[in-house]
């Protein structure tokens, strides 16, 4: 039997009509429930367009009304997602609904120290991301051994964290460490240099966790503002990439603070080495091993090498993960006799300071996030026009590592660089998307058929390959 629907057609409305019309219909239905059936509003279909341009923004989205007016953009409020009268997406639950009615008391369940508390996914050399298991004991060790001794947090410290909490750097050192020490945590949900600077000032932050690009931005902003630069920071930590020496010194002077650079991995619950500015600072070094951390340099057979000789950096400590979730093979490949094989190549000087000189793993690091070249290569190869692809890290204009792809097309196929980049952006997080694509007739291969990435890299400076004594420094690769 045919059903009847009412059509409401509003082809040139205001942006605020878009949510208001269905809201009015829903409200009419509520009231209509008390009326005789024949007066109840019918099922309704609405087709709406707007005049000009409009933005529908949720309550937590900041809209600049002046800028909007300047560009002729109207603003409408997106329907609330909280509250009794708010519709909710079908098949979902609202966090506020399920927690508001739940009791506040909950006795913590008994856990063994070695039980995983968190699984963090990180890209390695093999295709898709692997889940690094971090246990209650790992976090406890990070707080009690490293945070407590290297940059002792105190109860009256206020930490500012703009780095995402889903990354090991902020997760271990801010989210967990602040509760461990009873400090206060200032959460910043989105990054802009001005927002960060204002938040530091407003919360009178004493500790800042950031990555080099943020220190550079803050410094640039502080130079412009000249006055009102917060002087409350007693310690800043930088990781993820090298921080240029000049930036470090000027930042310390203007903000009246100190910066320590950390080196660590997701597999080590973040930092295992810290190079602190001051008397103990060694240019180009990642610092000495932190308390409770053993680091040695080994050859391919796992034998320890003497000082000054380059080999793989291996780590043993209570902060080292037990392995990858659901992946004994990968776990066995990196965890050998209790030592984590980092894939980083480095050496130690006579004073116990470590230097990174090369990387064994085929890995790209951008903004502190690991990128697996293989994951990008595999994705590209799923495109119909692509026969094969090879991906390397190159330095972009800002001095950050960026993804570059070399693509061999399938016979007879043609595809533009733009289309392939778009294809990647549909399937990959933005930092993994190639910034450049170069088409080749073939990829350079060894006699055994292995793609020779070294040849592809010719002409690109690999910023990770720091020589001992360089003024720049290697950061952590979380």
């Amino acid at each position, binding site marked *: 039997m045919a059903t009847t629907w*009412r059509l409401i057609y509003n082809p040139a409305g205001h942006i605020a009509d878009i949510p208001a019309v269905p809201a009015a219909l829903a409200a009419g239905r509520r009231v209509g429930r008390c009326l005789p059936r024949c007066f109840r509003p019918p099922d309704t279909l609405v087709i709406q367009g707007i005049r000009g341009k409009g933005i529908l923004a*949720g309550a937590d989205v900041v809209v600049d009304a002046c800028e909007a007016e300047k560009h002729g953009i109207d603003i409408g409020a997106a329907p609330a997602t909280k509250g009794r009268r708010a519709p909710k997406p079908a098949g979902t639950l609202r966090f506020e609904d399920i927690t508001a009615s739940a009791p506040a008391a*909950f006795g913590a369940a008994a856990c063994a120290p070695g039980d995983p508390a968190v699984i963090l996914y990180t890209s390695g050399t093999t295709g898709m991301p692997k889940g690094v298991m971090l246990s209650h004991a790992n976090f406890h060790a990070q707080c009690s051994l490293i945070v407590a001794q290297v940059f002792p947090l105190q109860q009256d410290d206020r930490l500012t964290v703009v780095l995402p909490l889903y990354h090991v750097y902020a997760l271990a050192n801010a989210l967990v460490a602040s509760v461990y020490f009873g400090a206060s945590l200032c959460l910043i949900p989105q990054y802009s240099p001005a927002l960060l600077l204002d938040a530091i000032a407003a919360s009178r932050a004493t500790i800042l966790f950031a990555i080099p690009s943020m220190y550079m931005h803050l410094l640039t902003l502080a130079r412009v503002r000249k006055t009102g630069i917060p002087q409350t920071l007693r310690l800043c930590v930088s990781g993820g990439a090298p921080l240029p020496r000049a930036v470090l010194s000027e930042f310390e002077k203007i903000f009246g603070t100190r910066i320590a650079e950390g080196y660590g991995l997701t597999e080590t619950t973040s930092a295992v080495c810290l190079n602190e500015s001051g008397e103990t600072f060694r240019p180009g070094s990642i610092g000495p091993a932190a308390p409770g951390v053993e680091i040695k340099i080994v050859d391919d057979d796992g034998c320890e090498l003497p000082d000054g000789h380059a080999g793989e950096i291996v780590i043993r400590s209570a902060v080292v993960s037990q392995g990858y979730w659901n992946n004994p093979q990968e776990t066995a490949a990196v965890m050998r006799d209790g030592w984590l094989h980092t894939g980083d190549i480095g050496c130690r000087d006579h004073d116990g300071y470590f230097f990174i000189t090369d990387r064994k793993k085929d890995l790209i690091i951008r903004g502190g996030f690991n990128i697996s070249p293989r994951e990008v290569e595999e994705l590209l190869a799923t495109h119909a026009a692509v026969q094969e692809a090879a991906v390397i890290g190159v330095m972009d204009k800002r001095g950050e590592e960026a993804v570059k792809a070399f693509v061999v097309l399938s016979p007879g196929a043609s595809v533009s660089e733009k289309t392939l980049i778009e294809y990647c952006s549909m399937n990959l997080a933005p930092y993994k998307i190639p910034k450049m694509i170069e088409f080749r007739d073939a990829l350079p291969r060894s006699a055994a058929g292995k793609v020779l990435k070294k040849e592809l890299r010719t002409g690109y400076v690999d910023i990770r390959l720091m020589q001992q004594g360089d003024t720049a420094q290697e950061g952590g690769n979380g």
Partner: protein
Amino acid sequence: MAEIPSLGAMLAETARRLGSKEALIFEGRTISYRELDEQAGRTANALAALGIRTGDRVAIMLPNIPEFVYTFYGLQKLGAVAVPFNTMYKGREITHILNDSGARAIVALTGFANLINEIKTDVPGLEHIILTGQRTLLFAQEGATVFVQMVFDAGRFASSDAVFKATGAVLVSALKRLGVDDAWYKHQGSIRCDGKKIASILLSTFENLFIVNALVCIDRLEIDTFFKAVGVPPEVKDKVLEPMTSVREQTGSPVTIAVFRDAFMDAFQQQLDADIVSGSLSIIERFAYRQARRRPGEKIPKT
């Protein structure tokens, strides 16, 4: 090792010692350790009521907002395993993480509902989608975006899945009538051409009603100027910037909203065996409409 407390016990202990001290500072608000401990307790109880047990994995796809902290410590109190991941991840990456970790639930931003719905059938182990935050962001432009909405009794369709299916089928059929031949609808989210989004569908429930909100692109949206007016975190921006296409880009010819309306009504009538009668808002609805409009001074739509 026995003296090492779990992260859940650690929060309880800090709250016992420092109850009124500020634990979190967020957008001018402070949250004490006691409040944090209680919020984590509520989250643990709420998740336990959903059947989440010690050792279960629960994914977190949130930016730095207090709900991240409540969820994290709620899971720790439960002895469950938190699986927080990059909010910039796309469907393929999220599918891998949810399946590999075997997550039974996910706590995510409300604005990610569409993305998670779209991959839900590829993640059979995911039982609960829990949403928070009000970071929804939508751009509209004359001649480029058309909003198709439906408000109807829940009883009209057998299930929410049936509504998704019917709405998707009508939209695909309308797009085909307009010459977009390779439009396809996977599941509960987006209609795509060559992987690019051309329309999205969000189904909401409200008491005994279903409310469908669909957005269809009939022409290219000029996105750049919009970002001059809104400052949004990268994960929100990235979802807005997802490669889009439109009827015009697919067919080479422009389509007006009136032409789209006719194609949509044809498809709707045929697919759903429905009669459509032009109408306008009733007196009660007009009153509700005025209340719902946040900006005064605009006229009620002529119908």
